[in-house]
């Protein structure tokens, strides 16, 4: 529902991340990590990204989304497991004291500069 705002943030961060010595570089791909708990619908984000990227160095770039599973660790028995149902108690000892290790991500990992432009500069 707020995917357009997020897409705009992605475009902004990616644009800022283009190295200064690569003026006019075009970004071909953005690699994004999205946790399964993140309040984002990947299909909708891809659509918004395409729109937000227009007339920027990211125009036409691919948004590659890696979905990250929800991993948890029990504070009481140290058991680690992947949460695949909405149950947030320890699988082993039933403790409710758990730590979420992953699944909240909404992170830009890397951007990929289209090669033809990268070679143009030097």
């Amino acid at each position, binding site marked *: *529902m*707020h995917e*357009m*705002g*997020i897409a705009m*943030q*992605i475009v902004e*961060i*990616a644009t800022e*991340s*283009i*190295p200064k010595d690569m003026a006019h570089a075009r970004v*071909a*791909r953005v*690699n*994004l*990590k999205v946790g*399964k*708990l*993140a*309040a*984002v*619908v990947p299909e909708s984000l891809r659509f918004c990204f395409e729109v937000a990227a227009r007339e920027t160095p990211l125009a036409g770039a*691919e948004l*590659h*989304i*890696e*979905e990250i*599973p*929800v991993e948890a660790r029990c504070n009481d028995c140290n058991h680690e497991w992947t*949460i*695949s*149902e*909405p*149950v*947030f*108690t320890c699988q082993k000892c039933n*403790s*409710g*004291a*758990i730590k*979420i290790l992953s699944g909240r991500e*909404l*992170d*830009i*990992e*890397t*951007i*990929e*500069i*289209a*090669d033809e432009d*990268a070679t143009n500069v030097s």
Partner: protein
Amino acid sequence: MFPEGFKIIRHLHHHESHKSPRTHTQSGTVKNVQTSDNRKIKVVRRVLDVNQQMAERNRQMFHENGVFVLNIMSSPGSGKTTTLEKTLERIMSNIKCAVIVGDICTTNDADRLARSGAPVVQINTDEFGGDCHLAAHVIEKAANGIDLEAIECLIVENVGNLVCPAEFDIGEDLRVVILSVTEGEDKPLKYPLMFRECDAAILNKIDLLPYLDYDSEAAVQNILQVHPGIPVFELSAKTEEGFKPWIQWLTAQVRSNRNH
């Protein structure tokens, strides 16, 4: 997030996109690696870090002024405004409050709340692009219209939505989610992020239970399954049945903030 149905299950076995072959290795080892076509540049930034930073700034500003901030979230119509009205009636004599209302569903929320005597700032989220949540910069702007030194508690009625507000820190100290008995018992399972992010849950409109085929025990159980140990207050904002434990708990939270 899993707004409709549970995405964890649906996507578990096919989250590798077929049309885009993986060219990157595990995170952390990819700096400027030459791939077949493109030049990879490491970024590693949270997309929402601008909001996060702004939220931390708000938090600091509120703390400096000794203001405790409560963020109230729910679906549209679950009873945020009504619960707030009744809460203000009971606590205003002890705790000086102000309110920020972001809910776009009804226009008279601010008027209803202002009757309590608390200063109320209504945010028209349309102004910020018709957002489905309150972001930290919106709260900062709204807080400018409030004399923070004159209050102890700022209550924010967030936009009616169980998805997006859970993702956006606004600089609050406490988050409360309201579920009403006219909504499905399984809502906590469909919106686990919201119920996990909150510090307390209210099950509202219990005055309607005699007329409904609603299993409130199951609803509470589902809340606890998603967030073990979370305080759950079953109450009616209309009749004020069950209101006392909620008020006592909230007052204790604000007090504990006062003491440090």
